[in-house]
């Protein structure tokens, strides 16, 4: 008798508890403003007045691989962390960003969204598929086994070979996960304070070649709940664009896609042809340029600006390529040098000019951002707070820099090959979904490898040094175009107002460079790097055409540096000395910091471990920013407008 009563009591308690949870969920009332795109919610500046800092590429426990790698934090924790709150990591360490971000896009893998969490949570005896049952067991057994399961899952994903049983109830799982996530994102979206955006990662990878895109919505739940994240398996990029077009047509909302890690695509991300090898059509080029205005060029899994093979005359080429330029994403297929051309952003910008000559439309007229691609739910982009690519390499794993770290079991990459991740800066008039999204759409964004440098660039035809004495930002907007914009050739060399300010809490700047690309009279693509302005120009005079190195203040024993070298601010009005009338070109900025410790050196000092010789040789780097380009278009070069 006693037991029956006890049981009833428990049932009632649990029931009350569940009801209370439901109440609590309703409690957090989400306003219409938070659910919308932010238009008309806050007062906007006249011109974009500061860069807003964000990460457009973050995974939580809804991503199968992230979950397999051990993360147990979801969207709520991710948003709390990005907006500056203290959050306990998966392994129980309290963590907080010393500077909050302004915006965050949560981009879990659309394939199997929430499905792996479901495998984990499912009662074991209900799982009949032997493969899924094995994954379930591995996930529960130990972090090592969980990691192994994640590796298998990624491999299966690459070869599109998931157990059939996973298709059962897939749509329902996806819908539940998607809707719950959107509700949380809307709850944390606060126009003017913090922008939380919905999105997903579209994870196409034929043969392990990374063709991934981050898809980012301008809208909140009222619109995004009308669709489900689009799966990568068995689909093509054209189908993704169909999905995006349908979303815009059916909901009245807007969406864009951001390719990432072209460095792991074995040349497939920026091909000179259609995906099937036939000549590229204007229609394809136009769709691509319109759907994908921005590329993520730097993140934890390496940097995709350029490769020394492609840019032999660029002494700063090759940042963040070690370990990443040997093979594609899952190291299934080795990378050969003929593949590099389609794998790096600078070459793609050049290819875009060639394709524009051929088809009339530039498919690769993209802006550039950085992000993290963190799978820990923590959007950490700095060297001194690197939380790891995924949860099994969170900083509780003290030897992570030296360990081989591949997805799955293959050899080839080490912990120290991973970068600490980057951030995206968006020049916007205010911090709302619409303002941030629109900055991406017009490419007024830039990439950094983590530091928050303030980088401005205006292109025009009548800028001069005297403009610095007045309201130069206004002049830039009123008589020129900002980064991401297009100039039309007027028969004289374009000039650029270029301004870079160091991260106020970071390292000084070494130099600002302009990277120019063009197609010569013979139809060959060319590039040239111009050192435009650098610190201590009176002492560091060019010798043999080169600006001497800025120096190195890093103390390897303590992972510290000083700002005794470099400059806090650099600016210049620069005019293209090699301008040729009638020749189209692009110009983007690369801003270099003085050398600073990488995360590996911070790890070594913090945990008292010895880095391997290779890791130690790479323990100091010059972090950098890449602006979106400004294009100089020849008259009538873009026939897309006419059509």
């Amino acid at each position, binding site marked *: 008798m006693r037991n029956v009563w006890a049981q009833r009591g428990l049932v009632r308690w649990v029931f*009350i508890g569940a009801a209370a949870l439901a109440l609590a969920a309703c409690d957090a009332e989400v306003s219409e403003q938070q659910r919308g795109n932010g238009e008309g919610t806050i007062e906007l500046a006249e011109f974009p007045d500061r860069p807003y800092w964000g990460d457009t590429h973050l995974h939580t426990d809804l991503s199968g691989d992230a979950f397999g790698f051990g993360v147990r934090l979801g969207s709520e924790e991710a948003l709390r962390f990005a907006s500056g709150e203290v959050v306990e990591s998966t392994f129980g360490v309290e963590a907080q960003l010393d500077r909050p971000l302004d915006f965050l896009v949560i981009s879990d893998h659309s394939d199997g969204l929430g499905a792996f969490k479901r495998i984990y949570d499912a009662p074991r005896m209900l799982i009949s598929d032997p493969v899924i049952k094995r994954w379930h067991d591995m996930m529960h057994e130990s972090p090592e086994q969980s990691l192994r399961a994640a590796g298998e899952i990624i491999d299966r994903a690459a070869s599109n070979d998931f157990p059939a049983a996973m298709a059962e109830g897939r749509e329902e799982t996806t819908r539940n996960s998607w809707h719950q996530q959107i509700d949380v994102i809307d709850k944390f979206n606060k126009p003017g304070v913090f922008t939380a955006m919905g999105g997903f990662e579209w994870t196409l990878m034929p043969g392990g070649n990374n063709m991934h895109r981050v898809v980012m919505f301008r809208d909140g739940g009222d619109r995004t709940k009308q669709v489900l994240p689009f799966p990568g398996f068995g689909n093509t990029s054209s189908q993704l664009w169909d999905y995006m077009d349908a979303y815009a047509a059916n909901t009245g909302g807007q969406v864009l896609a951001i390719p990432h890690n072209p460095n792991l695509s074995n040349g497939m991300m920026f091909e000179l042809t259609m995906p099937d090898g036939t000549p590229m059509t204007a229609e394809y080029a136009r769709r691509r340029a319109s759907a994908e205005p921005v590329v993520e060029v730097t993140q934890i899994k390496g940097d995709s600006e350029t490769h020394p093979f492609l840019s032999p005359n660029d002494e700063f080429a090759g940042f963040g390529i070690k370990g990443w330029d040997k093979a594609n994403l899952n190291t299934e297929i080795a990378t050969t040098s003929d593949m590099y051309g389609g794998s790096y952003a600078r070459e793609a910008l050049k290819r875009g000019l060639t394709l524009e000559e051929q088809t009339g439309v530039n498919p690769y007229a993209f802006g550039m951002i950085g992000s993290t691609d963190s799978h820990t739910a923590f959007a950490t982009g700095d060297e001194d707070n690197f939380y790891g690519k995924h949860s099994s390499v969170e900083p509780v794993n003290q030897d992570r820099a030296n360990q081989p770290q591949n997805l799955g079991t293959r050899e080839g990459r080490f912990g120290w090959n991973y970068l600490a991740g980057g951030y995206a800066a968006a020049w916007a008039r205010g911090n709302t979904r619409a303002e941030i999204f629109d900055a991406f759409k017009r490419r007024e964004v830039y990439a950094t490898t983590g530091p928050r440098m303030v980088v401005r660039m205006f292109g025009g035809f009548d800028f001069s040094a005297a403009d610095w004495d007045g309201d130069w930002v206004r002049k830039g907007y009123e008589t020129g175009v900002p980064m991401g914009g297009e100039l039309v050739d007027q028969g004289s060399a374009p000039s650029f107002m270029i301004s870079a300010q160091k991260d106020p809490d970071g390292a000084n700047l070494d130099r600002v460079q302009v990277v120019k690309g063009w197609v010569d009279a013979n139809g060959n693509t060319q590039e040239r790097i111009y050192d435009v302005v650098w610190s201590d120009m009176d002492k560091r005079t060019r010798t043999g055409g080169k600006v001497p190195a800025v120096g190195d203040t890093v103390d390897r024993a303590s992972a510290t540096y000083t700002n005794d070298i470099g400059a806090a601010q650099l600016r210049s009005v620069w005019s293209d000395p090699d301008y040729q009338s009638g020749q189209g070109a692009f110009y983007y900025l690369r801003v270099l910091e003085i050398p600073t410790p990488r995360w590996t050196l911070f790890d070594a000092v913090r945990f008292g471990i010895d880095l391997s010789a290779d890791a130690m040789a790479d323990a100091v780097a010059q972090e950098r920013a890449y602006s979106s380009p400004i294009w100089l278009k020849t008259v009538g070069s873009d026939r897309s407008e006419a059509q």
Partner: protein
Amino acid sequence: MNLPTWTREPLVHFLIGGALLFGWFTWQGSPVDPASRSIIVDRDTLGSISAGFEQQMGRFPSDTELDNLIERHIREEVLYREALRLGMDQDDAVIRRRLAQKMDLVAGSQAELLEPSDEVLTKWLAEHPARFAQDPLYSFEQLGFVQRTTADAALKTEDLASRLETAAPTMELPKAVSGMSRQEIQTRFGQQFVRELDQLEPGDQWQGPVPSGLGWHLVRLQEVSAENLPALDDIRDDVESDWRLGTAANRKQQAYQLLRGAYSVEIDR
């Protein structure tokens, strides 16, 4: 003493152990006695079945639907008891965790249901001002310098107000900042600048040079609004939800400590 060899057989140990355990469980009984084959669907159970349906569908179930739900409930109950009889709840990480979560939930659930009075919330607000305080707002004018010496010289010798009027904005440093939050100032000018700014008294005079990560600033700090704690009425929802979370967490922890106190734990290291 010589024991027969069979007493050393592991199998025998296992059987005896199993028999003891079986005996103990039979004597003790368990919340749902696997031995019981009588299922009573009482009014309480019917109520919660019906409420569950209502919560999901937004209406009460029809008689047929209720019959189906009862049938499903019985089926689940039968399989559940048989699963317990077979010991399927043992060594299952999911079930372990669910049960532990339920204990937590029960401990915290009282806080979820309480309607806190204004008094309780006022006290909570007073105890945790930092969570609800609005950032102080700063208004100032500034001139930026690369070198400290130039800044010092300018402060001593120049008419800074007129210099400010004619000066171009220094790079990304606005000449005048009006009502900017502490957080925003930190984002734009860095942490050091905010710390230094807090050392200054607002007034009409030019002060500095104030160092920042960007260089040296001469500053005319016009106003710093006090760290402003809004009235409870304006932020009642936020305070209440924070109170609820905090109280539930506290109760869970207290309940756990109480239970934990009754255990002795040994860890082989």
